[in-house]
């Protein structure tokens, strides 16, 4: 398991710290990508920080809504830095909404912005995989494959490494067969690659969120993501008739 740092009476596990540093590097990468497409790099920094703050606020409020009587009695707890009292999915959703509103407010073309930050998003994919590997999160099913790793009392699929490999392969694919930048194609290709990879590797996860019938929820979401991405790519692709013509 990863070490825990103590700072001013707060215990900070290394995973969020790695994610924070990785996110900072992603913002830097994203700002460089934005500048290469004629977008002010500051928009990535500002939008990124607004997303983080918005995500934290929404994540905490979603938690407070579930336990209103506790937070009514102790409203200061709403601004507590404790990491255990957030609803993660609400934080991600809230962060995304705040980021989108920032882009709209500044009239930045969405497709161009997404293409600009796509390499940074792939970087984040890899960083999350690495942080999960060290923290023992997102662990795999028990297996006897020769490349299995010892984790949580058993030999398991190294699902975090599968994710890391997926990020590296996606980066190669994006840069070796580049599409025109600025129309959102890079973003759709990333969504397609991530979704296909998740659809495949989720089957080896030992901590999948299982819904009725034993289906793994994230596989269903990933399949939908892959189909949406392909649909979007099909919309902008030339038809065979116009290609011949």
């Amino acid at each position, binding site marked *: 398991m990863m070490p825990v740092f103590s700072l001013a009476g707060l215990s900070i596990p290394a995973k969020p710290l790695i994610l924070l540093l990785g996110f900072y590097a992603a913002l830097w990468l994203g700002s460089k990508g934005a500048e290469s497409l004629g977008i002010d790099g500051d928009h990535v920094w500002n939008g990124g920080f607004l997303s983080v703050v918005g995500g934290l606020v929404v994540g905490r409020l979603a938690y407070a809504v579930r336990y209103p009587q506790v937070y009514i009695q102790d409203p200061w*707890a709403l601004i507590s830095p404790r990491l255990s009292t957030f609803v993660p999915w609400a934080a991600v959703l809230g962060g995304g909404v705040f980021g989108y509103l920032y882009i709209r407010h500044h009239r930045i073309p969405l497709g161009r912005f997404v293409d600009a930050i796509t390499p940074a998003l792939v970087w984040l994919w890899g960083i999350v995989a690495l942080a999960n590997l060290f923290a023992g999160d997102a662990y795999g099913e028990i297996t006897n494959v020769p490349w299995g790793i010892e984790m949580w009392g058993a030999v398991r699929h190294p699902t975090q490494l599968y994710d890391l490999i997926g990020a590296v392969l996606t980066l190669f694919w994006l840069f070796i067969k580049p599409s025109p930048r600025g*129309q959102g*194609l890079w*973003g759709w290709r990333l969504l397609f690659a991530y979704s296909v990879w998740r659809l495949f590797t989720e089957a080896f996860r030992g901590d999948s969120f299982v819904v009725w019938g034993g289906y793994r929820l994230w596989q269903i979401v990933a399949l939908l993501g892959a189909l949406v991405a*392909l649909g979007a*790519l099909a919309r*902008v692709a030339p*038809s065979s008739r116009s290609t011949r013509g």
Partner: protein
Amino acid sequence: MSRQEVSSTSWTRQRYIFLMVLMAIFGLSWIVSSRVPENATRHVARAPKPGFLAPDFELQSLDGAYVKLSQYRGRPVVINFWATWCPPCRSEMPAIVREYERYKGQGLVVLAVDNGEDPPKVRAFREEYGMSFPVLLDKKMRVAEMYHIRALPTTFFIAPDGTITDMVVGGMNKATVRVHFQRLMEGH
């Protein structure tokens, strides 16, 4: 995003649509074939992590009795790793005591595992904070090692079936303590 056709894309619309159909067929087949069997026992392993069975241990309490975690199977259990010298342990203890008093009638068990300190010091702390639950002495910090404790306090919340449902590293404020105890008692 632009609806304008991107002429430099090497794939035609028809090829993408064909790929969508293939994707749907193979994707659905993969989802069905990789379902988790209904009788699967996914987390039978014991590990100090939410989702796994809590590792069993036996320790001597401050009163001299031996206490085994597995003897409380069937009841919700909170294990709090702490030490008298640790300021966040001190600040969260009153809230833990309060929540224990609130829920003990419903079967809640709290095990306060002290990390390697002398009994007189631990006893003084117990008296100061009015801890009426078992205070266990982990003299050689064997249980702390078993639970991968890297910071004090660390608290584990264990469901009646022995599965760890939640884990908090570091001190908890009143609201956090209350919410986590409530979640455990509500069976989340």
